[in-house]
């Protein structure tokens, strides 16, 4: 999967698991980070899903603080 495909797959996974508004971007010099936009109260749920997101080909899962 390329970075875009990985992001779409991660978003689908998050949407199916109770995070309907989640958005994912690939960040890092090797696009190895899944940068996720979710509300702060959903971070625990995001952390629980981190292994599944990494299984899509990301090395790290992070909350995007940029916006």
């Amino acid at each position, binding site marked *: 999967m390329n970075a875009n495909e990985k992001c779409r797959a991660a978003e689908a996974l998050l949407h199916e698991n109770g995070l309907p508004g989640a958005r994912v971007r690939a*960040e890092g010099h090797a696009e190895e*980070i899944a940068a996720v936009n979710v509300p702060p109260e959903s971070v625990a749920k995001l952390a629980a899903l981190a292994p599944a997101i990494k299984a899509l080909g990301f*090395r*790290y*899962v992070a909350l995007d603080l*940029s916006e």
Partner: protein
Amino acid sequence: MVSGQGTAPVERTGRVLRGGEPEAGELRSTGRLYYISCNRRSWRARPGDTARLVRGPAAGYLGAVRTVCVERQRDESESMRDLIGAWARGSSLEERYERLVELIEGYGSVCVGYSGGVDSVFLAKVCVDVLGADRVLAVTGRSASYPAVQWEMALECARRFGIPHEELETEEQLDPRYAANPTNRCYYCKSELWSKLTALAAERGYAVVADGSNADDAADFRPGARAGAEWGIRSPLAEAGLTKADIRELSRRHGLPTWDQPAAPCLASRIPYGLAVTPARLQQVERAENAIRALGFREFRVRHHGVAARIEVAPSEQPRALAMARELGRELRSVGFERVLLDVEGYRRGALNEGLPVLAALP
């Protein structure tokens, strides 16, 4: 029980003919680069290993009457882990500390690689206690990858505990093999440090150069340890089987302010392998971490991913990081990161080693 390098006379050299207790069999030259030593109780030699039977001073610090040194060209780190682990599990903290004192006594004089971290401060303090300040020199290798906050701690501890201390400029960043940031980057950095430190120790007449590697380090991916072995650097904390937890507890008992200090590896460890280590990136990481420290966070890392910063915060501080997300973002953008990310899994040691396809890419 365990040693990285002995100086005892060799009685016989031979090849191990079968597993179990090493035997001195067919004589042959050794030509070793690395070896590990053990007493008879703990070693399981493999057929083909080269063994040296030694007597004398090595037996003193190894705590055995007779010592068999076994040399290996490969798997030495695995074997060392087995040995240290066996000793650490079967001994008390007091016994491991006594072993450390015995090892240091055997040195006579020592030059300690001194970063100002938990391990090296403890080691330097014990060396001064055991040998006296006139037989110890703590040396800090300084370069762009060495954080200023660590230097302040190194200075403070040296002053407070009477540890003779000097700084030594290192220039690993001028080595393109280091700057390219391969998975064995630490090997080139430590090679630079140990080449200069062993030269200084020889010039000043110190018998041994030692570092603060501990028994836990033997289980981690540490290409820098290979440079230490090549330069004959001793690791008495590891050799005594002292773990990080042991060293923190002993540091507390010795009244060292470093006892609960978070681990503080060099700034280059924040840059993922394959992304070049440059003075500008190191400075950016240092400024970012200083800003986060000023917000009251204690255990964290800022990982440099090019235009993005990925913050790892200890799980206990994660709720506060979430509450201060806006401030964290603002501070890190102010030091030049376009994107600011908070890792949801939090701080963990060696995070940049995660997912490496080949962990043992050594020269």
